[in-house]
């Protein structure tokens, strides 16, 4: 019998029932909730007279709509100026209270972006199934947890039944072998992967990220990689358990303790793909070849190395590609063959569930230290992923580094990742952003997003245009 993949193991460990029609009932261990996709689900429960199946499986926090300035946040929910946003956040509070679901409210120090909060609390554990009404739930796969986003009807289904109707996906392995160069981060790795396989490359697959370069990443880095599995079309991204996983989880709030910890660790050690496990597809990348990445277009697969240039539609392989590039360049206001380092920026956003963890802030602060944000940059903001990340950064003095350099130091939330609160791009503005989506209008109507790592974003803020963070100080002196 061939070995099992990590995904196969997780699937079979949660299979409640297989149905004749090819669907299966999968048991859900952890359900994360936020204010945008849950209200109708709660209302559905109420209308049907149902109760949540298992309260302790759920954990909620508002993140998408919360304002990020200190002044607004000081007022709690009352600081949310948009009445529609306010109602959504209040509704989450009310629903959690009336159903008895634990929630980290707006000014709870544990509040933050759901995908930062879950792992940070140890609420995401290896071997779990984790779902949330949000496509970036793939993040939690960094812990060898089977995690993916769901829709509002499914949110209700999980609340009511602790199960999900699912169909098994195919297995893909993406191996990144070798050592990453200095200044090349997890974000560059995942952007390079998406650049290689394309935004639909992972459709229908659960992707397991493997290889020595992946094993060499911290948990923060692994979360960054799994977070963007969805941008490669895969609802699920996974990384096997190793010492790094276990060390991260020890003493986290919801992590087991004592004898149970020992038993859990023994169990988690099996959460790896067996030798000889068969994948439907395998893709291999050489870590040494990966440069710091910058997205130039309106889809996450439209990326180039920092030493590269914007493509020329005239050189595209076919008509579809040509039209795609032409339309993207038009929207982005870029010229064919323009050097990536010649792209000038208006705003810089360091944050989002992709890159707002402590390690991300450290990397950005390291670059920013002792420099000033360029005068041409209208706004450079740092938005920590959670209240606890913020607190730790402040203990380490990172906030001072950012503030001294001219960055705004904000309160935790999704912020300019999707511009559902007041943090937005203006039409035509170019933004170096550590988030995950560069779709048209994603960060504000007409806004132009360039996806980069935190270090690259910080360097760009100081230079006013993209620079190779690997030679950053030299570049700053030239400027």
């Amino acid at each position: 019998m061939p070995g099992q993949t990590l995904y196969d193991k997780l699937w079979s460990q949660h299979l409640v029932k297989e149905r004749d029609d090819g669907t299966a009932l999968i048991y859900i261990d952890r359900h994360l909730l936020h204010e945008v996709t849950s209200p109708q689900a709660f209302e559905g429960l109420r209308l049907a007279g149902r109760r949540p199946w298992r309260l302790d499986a759920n954990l909620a926090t508002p993140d998408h709509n919360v304002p990020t300035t200190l002044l607004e946040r000081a007022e709690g929910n009352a600081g949310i100026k948009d009445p529609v946003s306010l109602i959504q956040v209040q509704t989450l509070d009310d629903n959690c209270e009336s159903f008895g679901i634990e929630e980290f409210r707006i000014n709870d120090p544990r509040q933050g972006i759901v995908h930062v909060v879950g792992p940070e609390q140890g609420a995401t554990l290896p071997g779990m199934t984790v779902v949330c009404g949000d496509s970036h739930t793939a993040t939690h796969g960094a812990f060898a947890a089977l995690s993916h986003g769901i829709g509002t009807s499914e949110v209700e289904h999980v609340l009511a039944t602790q199960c999900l109707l699912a169909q098994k996906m195919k297995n893909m392995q993406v191996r990144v072998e070798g050592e990453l160069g200095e200044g090349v981060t997890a974000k560059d790795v995942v952007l390079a992967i998406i650049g290689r396989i394309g935004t639909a490359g992972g459709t229908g697959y659960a992707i397991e990220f493997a290889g020595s370069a992946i094993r060499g990443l911290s948990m923060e880095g692994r979360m960054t990689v799994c977070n963007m599995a969805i941008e490669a079309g895969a609802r699920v991204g996974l990384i096997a358990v190793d010492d790094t996983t276990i060390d991260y989880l020890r003493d986290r709030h919801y992590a087991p303790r004592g004898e149970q910890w020992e038993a859990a660790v023994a169990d988690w050690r099996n959460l790896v793909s067996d030798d000889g496990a068969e994948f439907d597809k395998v893709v291999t990348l050489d870590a040494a070849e990966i440069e710091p990445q910058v997205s130039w277009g309106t889809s996450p697969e439209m990326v180039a190395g920092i030493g590269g240039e914007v493509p020329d539609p005239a050189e595209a392989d076919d008509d579809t590609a040509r039209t795609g590039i032409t339309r993207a360049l038009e929207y982005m206001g870029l010229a064919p063959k323009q050097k990536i380092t010649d792209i000038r920026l208006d705003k810089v956003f360091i944050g989002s569930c992709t890159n707002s963890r402590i390690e991300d802030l450290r990397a950005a602060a390291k670059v920013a230290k002792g420099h000033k944000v360029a005068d041409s940059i209208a706004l450079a903001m740092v938005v920590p992923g959670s209240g606890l990340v913020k607190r730790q950064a402040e203990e380490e003095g990172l906030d001072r580094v950012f503030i001294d350099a001219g960055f705004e130091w904000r309160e935790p939330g999704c912020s300019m990742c999707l511009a559902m609160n007041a943090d937005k791009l203006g039409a035509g503005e170019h933004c170096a952003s550590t988030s995950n989506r560069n779709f048209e209008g994603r960060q504000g109507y007409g806004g132009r997003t360039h996806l980069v790592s935190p270090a690259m974003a910080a360097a760009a803020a100081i230079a006013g245009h993209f620079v190779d963070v690997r030679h950053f100080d030299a570049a700053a002196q030239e400027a």
Partner: protein
Amino acid sequence: MQKFERLEGLVAPLDRANVDTDLIIPKQFLKSIKRSGFGVNLFDELRYLDEGQPGQDCSQRPINSDFVLNQPRYQGASILLARQNFGCGSSREHAPWALDDFGFRVVIAPSFADIFYNNAFKNGILLIRLSEAEVDRLFEEVAANEGYRLDVDLEAQRVITPSGELLEFEVDAFRKHCLLEGLDDIGITLKDEDAIHAFEQRHRAERPWMFREA
């Protein structure tokens, strides 16, 4: 989900093909956090003379008295008679939510858009496909007879006209079963309640650390 077995109700005619989901419920109302309350904005652009905003008091808005649903003779209708490709456009579940909230439990048309068809059944609304000729004739009869009512019998899969004529319709067995029993996906999953409990017990015994409450 609400059950549907049999309904005897007043019929309102909407004589227009390709009624899309934007027409059924315009996009500005999707900001709502609710699944209910969309009834006042059903067919908003047809019903009122101004542009509707979420949260507005619709009783103060100028009414388009030409629109069929605003005519006194159709007040209290629970069966909507429509034309082909009803419900085309987006996947918004707000469309069936709005129809239901307004009071429609049945829509009769020659054809429906796919996604809308699914969404409606999920929300306890029965969609009935009749032939073009049958639908044409129903439009004529509704127009000619004030207070025109139909008797819809799902179990027997037929619509009974005031003159006693029987119009038979097709509906797939699974959807029919769900409607008759008032079952939604959740209801069906809950039929496996015992299997879920058994799984949960085993899971808890094997991996107690996954459960925050011991």
